[in-house]
């Protein structure tokens, strides 16, 4: 678009940056507040005022370690199952005749409002008399993360040419060998992305966990309770901690992806 003037372009830049501020400023502000030692909701006034006081307080919260452990377990299981299922769908997607039906089915859960998915799953588990536990939460979370994971995986599989696999098979590679040496190395970015989606979506999910978990609460449920109950500023520290962990994982993923891109470039 050569016809766009500098003025219009800078207007659009401003607009986009304002939208980004609208999305990110509140969380950033919360991170800053979590470092203020007093009970006031404000950013520390001096550089020397920054303290991890409220973060250290988190160690004294009795129910927190259990919730963290539960969330990490649920997240890891969700990540594993989600990436496995989306890997399978990526593998068979090439050979499918009616691709859009399959894709439509797999991304369908994305269009079901969260609370309805949660309610329907909880009564379904009740029907087949499965008690609420960590595993019911995992199943709910896999269903929630699968559409996103499938899309990420299919994008990475779309770069995989059928000829590569044929070539491997013609050279005498077994199906497993072709998977190990050709398919997996070329699609690992998508599979890893699926796992990341599984873990982080599960970690941060609330309503499904609320309806599906047993006596042991997840981190999101615990945090939501604290937020509603008007707890002390350590809630900011807890939120800050979860934000930091999420951002750290996203950064790790970014480094990993640029590494994959770099290595595949040198390979080409």
């Amino acid at each position, binding site marked *: *678009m050569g*016809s766009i003037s500098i003025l219009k*372009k800078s207007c*659009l830049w401003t*607009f*986009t940056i304002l*939208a*980004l501020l609208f*999305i*990110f400023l*509140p*969380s950033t*502000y919360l991170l800053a*507040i979590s470092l203020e030692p007093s009970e006031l909701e404000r950013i520390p006034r001096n550089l020397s005022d920054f303290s991890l006081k409220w973060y250290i307080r988190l160690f004294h919260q009795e129910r927190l370690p259990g919730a963290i452990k539960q969330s990490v377990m649920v997240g890891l299981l969700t990540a594993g199952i989600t990436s496995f*299922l*989306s890997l*399978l*769908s990526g593998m*068979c*997607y090439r050979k*499918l005749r009616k691709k*859009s039906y*399959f*894709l*439509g*089915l*797999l991304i369908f859960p994305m*269009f*079901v*409002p*969260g*609370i*309805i998915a949660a*309610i*329907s799953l*909880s*009564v*379904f588990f009740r029907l087949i008399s499965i008690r609420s536990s960590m595993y019911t939460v995992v*199943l709910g979370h896999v*269903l929630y993360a699968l559409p996103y994971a499938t*899309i990420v995986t299919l*994008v990475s599989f*779309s770069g995989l040419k059928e000829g590569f696999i*044929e070539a491997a098979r*013609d050279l005498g590679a077994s199906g497993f060998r072709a998977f190990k040496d050709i398919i997996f190395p070329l699609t690992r970015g998508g599979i890893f992305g699926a796992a*990341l*989606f599984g873990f*982080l*979506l599960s*970690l941060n999910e*609330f*309503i499904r966990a609320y309806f599906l978990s047993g006596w042991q609460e997840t981190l*999101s449920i615990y*945090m939501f309770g604290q*937020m*509603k109950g008007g707890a002390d500023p350590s809630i900011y520290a807890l*939120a800050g901690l*979860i934000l930091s962990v999420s951002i750290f*994982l996203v950064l790790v993923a*970014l480094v990993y992806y640029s590494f994959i891109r770099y290595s595949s470039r040198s390979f080409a």
Partner: protein
Amino acid sequence: MGKPPGFAGGSLNQNSSVTSYQCANLLKNIRKFKISKSKERILFFIQLLPPALFVIILGVFPLVLIIIWSFWEPTTYWIKPDLTIAAYHKFFTAGRYLTFLKTLRVSCTVTFLALIIGYPIAYFIRKIVSEKYRNILLLTFIIPFFLSYIIRVFSLRLILGRYGVINNVLLWIGLISDPLEGLLFSELAVHIGLLSSYLPFMIFPIVLSIERVGESTIEASQDLGATFFQTLIRVIIPLTKPGIFAGCIFVFVSSLGSTVEWDLLGGVGEFSTPQMLESLMTALKFPSAFAISTLILAMTMCVLLLGFKYAKIAELFETLE
């Protein structure tokens, strides 16, 4: 997996007389090929069935279940088979539909706002910004998907609250002398919360659909003398209908089903359908909860069908094929 290895040598063409050894070899290879073909089919189903069955059993069947159960009769702790519309009748007589309409109105407003804000941003990212910045911008809009929406909504309290950023700034400028009270715990706050949660959901489908509009199409329109806005309205927007529709459905469905924004930002009087569902479930009033769920589902499915039929949402995913 092209042809069986026995065909590859071309030995049939060279010799007109085929030895029985070659014949036997060929048959063996054909049998092998058939076996590997059927093995491949089995493998194909092993790959296809787990994800498909997972979604059918846990994602589709339970929804059918609550639709059926919404016509059953309540008992003290559970429900029993029946065919009654009592739950739906209650929905309209007990004033629950008013809450439903309010939730619907808020969701529509938020969807509209997200479209107005999201479209220019998506267009900017895909067509105007240079490639270097495009990826950075796309990435920054992906990050919210990975952050806790509870925390993001909760942190808005710090911005909108009585001692929050907005009030402090306004006081500092001198526009107001007392902090504004109505910012937090109001319908306005709920709108803001929903918008900040779901804006990225609007941007991505639109970016995808703008990607599919070729540069030459836009150039052709401009060569024919169309101004920028004529091109936008006559060419680009009609061609990006799938993205617009998909984004609107995402935002609409998500805000229709979200509880957190109402819980954390809404006032005491603010009550939404998802919260109503939550309390109905806690009160063991199952058929009523199922009836409301069915209504929401029916609406969602209608919007979805419309999207697939008239806006060709499926085109968005063609790049995957």
